[in-house]
C-alpha cells in the first residue's frame, strides 16, 4: 500500500475522488481543447503535465469524460471512427461558453462538508475514557507528516515546475487549515474543561441541527 493510499483513506478527503474534481477534469479537458483539436492520448499527457502530475489520469478516464462531453454537445469529433485513439476532438461554441462560465463560478463552499475529522473529534469529546487532546494530537501529527512529504516535493526550487508548485501549495494550504482547526479545537476544549470542571463538554445535538450530520 502506498502512503497516499493509507493516509488518504483515513480521512477520505482526496481531491480526485471528489465529485467537484471530476467536474474539473471535464473543464480541464475543455481548456486544453480550447487551444486546438487534440487526440485523447495527447489530452491525457497535457492534463498531467499542466497539473504538475499531481493528479494522474488514466486513459480510460479521458475517453469516458470525452464521450460525456460529446454527448452534452461541448466537444465534437472530427472523424467518427470506432477506435478511440484515432479520434480527433475539438471544442464547440457551446463548450467555449461552458468553459468561460465555469472559470468564473466560485466552487460551492457554502455547505459545510461532512468532514470525517470533525466528526471524529466530536465523537471523542462525548466518550468518557477518551482523551480528546490525545485524539487531536494523533491527527495533528498525521497532517504535519503529510505536509512534510508535500513540502519535500518543492524543495528543489530549480527543478520546480510552476503548475506543480501551485498544486502543491494548494494541498499544503488545505492541510494547514486542518491543523489550524485542530489547534483552535484543542484550545477551545481545554478552556471549556477548565471553566466547567463538572459541566459536560459541548454536546452534539446543536451541531447536528445546523449541519445535518
Amino acid at each position: 500500500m502506498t502512503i497516499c493510499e493509507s493516509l488518504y483513506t483515513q480521512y477520505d478527503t482526496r481531491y480526485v475522488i471528489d465529485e467537484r474534481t471530476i467536474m474539473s477534469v471535464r473543464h480541464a479537458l475543455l481548456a486544453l481543447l480550447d487551444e486546438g483539436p487534440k487526440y485523447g492520448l495527447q489530452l491525457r499527457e497535457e492534463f498531467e503535465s499542466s497539473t504538475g502530475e499531481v493528479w494522474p489520469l488514466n486513459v480510460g478516464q479521458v475517453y469516458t469524460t470525452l464521450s460525456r462531453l460529446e454527448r452534452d454537445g461541448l466537444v465534437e469529433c472530427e472523424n467518427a471512427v470506432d477506435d478511440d485513439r484515432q479520434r480527433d476532438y475539438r471544442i464547440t461554441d457551446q463548450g467555449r461558453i461552458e468553459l468561460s462560465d465555469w472559470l468564473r463560478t466560485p466552487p460551492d463552499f457554502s455547505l459545510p462538508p461532512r468532514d470525517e475529522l470533525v466528526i471524529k473529534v466530536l465523537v471523542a469529546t462525548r466518550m468518557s475514557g477518551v482523551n480528546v487532546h490525545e485524539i487531536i494530537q494523533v491527527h495533528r501529527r498525521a497532517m504535519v507528516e503529510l505536509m512534510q512529504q508535500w513540502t519535500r516535493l518543492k524543495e528543489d526550487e530549480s527543478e520546480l515546475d510552476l503548475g506543480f508548485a501551485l498544486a502543491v501549495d494548494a494541498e499544503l494550504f488545505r492541510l494547514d487549515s486542518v491543523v489550524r482547526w485542530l489547534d483552535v479545537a484543542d484550545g477551545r476544549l481545554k478552556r471549556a474543561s477548565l471553566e466547567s470542571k463538572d459541566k459536560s463538554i459541548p454536546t452534539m445535538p446543536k451541531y447536528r441541527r445546523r449541519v445535518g450530520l
Partner: protein
Amino acid sequence: MSVLELLKVGKSYGEGASEVHALSDVDLSVDRGALVAVMGPSGSGKSTLLTIAGSLEEPTSGDVVVGGNSLLTMSRDDRARLRRRSIGYVFQDFNLLAGLTAVENVSLPLELDGISQKAAHGAGMTALEELGLLDRANRYPDELSGGERQRVAIARAVVGEHQLLLADEPSGALDSVNGEGVMRMILAACHRGVAAVVVTHDAQLASWADRVVFLRDGRVADQTMAPPSPESLLDPAAPTDLEH
C-alpha cells in the same frame, strides 16, 4: 553526530504557590545538518526551550550539551565564547542594530569574538552573498524591507563557524512567500552542515523540517516519524478512481 542535546531539561520560574514549570524532562537531540521544528500552543515552553538550548538561560534541572560540551560544567566565560562562536539566534523581531549596516550587523558577533575586523567583514559578506543580499550589504536596517531584514538576521545567525542555529518564530511578521524563503535559507544552512531548531506555530513552515517536535505544557508530547520518500504521494498506482 549530535550538535545539540537536551538531557532531561527542566525549567521552573517563581517559587511556592506561584511556581511555573515551563519545561519538564525535555530530551532532544539534533544532529549535524538536521532541521528540527518545535510546535506547540502559546505558553507550552517553546521559547524557554530555545533560550536554554542557546545557553541564554540556565535550566533548573538536566543538562545541555552543545558540540559535545556540557554547559553544566562549563565556566561562564567559556559559555559566552561558545555562544558567540558556535550558536546563532534569529528572533521574531530580527534584533538588528539600527546604527550598523547590514554587513556590520552580520560581522559583529565575530568581531566580539576577537576575529580581526577584516576577516569578520569578509565572513559577513560571504554570509550575505549566500542569502542573495550582497547589494544590500551597506544599507542600514531601516533601508531594508521586512524580508531583507529577516535575511540579514539569518545571515548573522549562520556567519562564520556557527554550527547551531536557533530561530524563534523566524518568519514572524512576514507573509507566506517570505516565510517560505526564510525556511529555504535555514534549510540551505543545514545542507552546509548547520544543525537548526526552529520554533513556529505555522505548520507550513514546520513541514520544511526533518522532524517536528510537539510541546505541550512544557513536555515533549509527540514528534513526527521520519517521512518516507515523497515520491509515494505521486505513485501512479495510488487510487485515482474517477469512475462513478
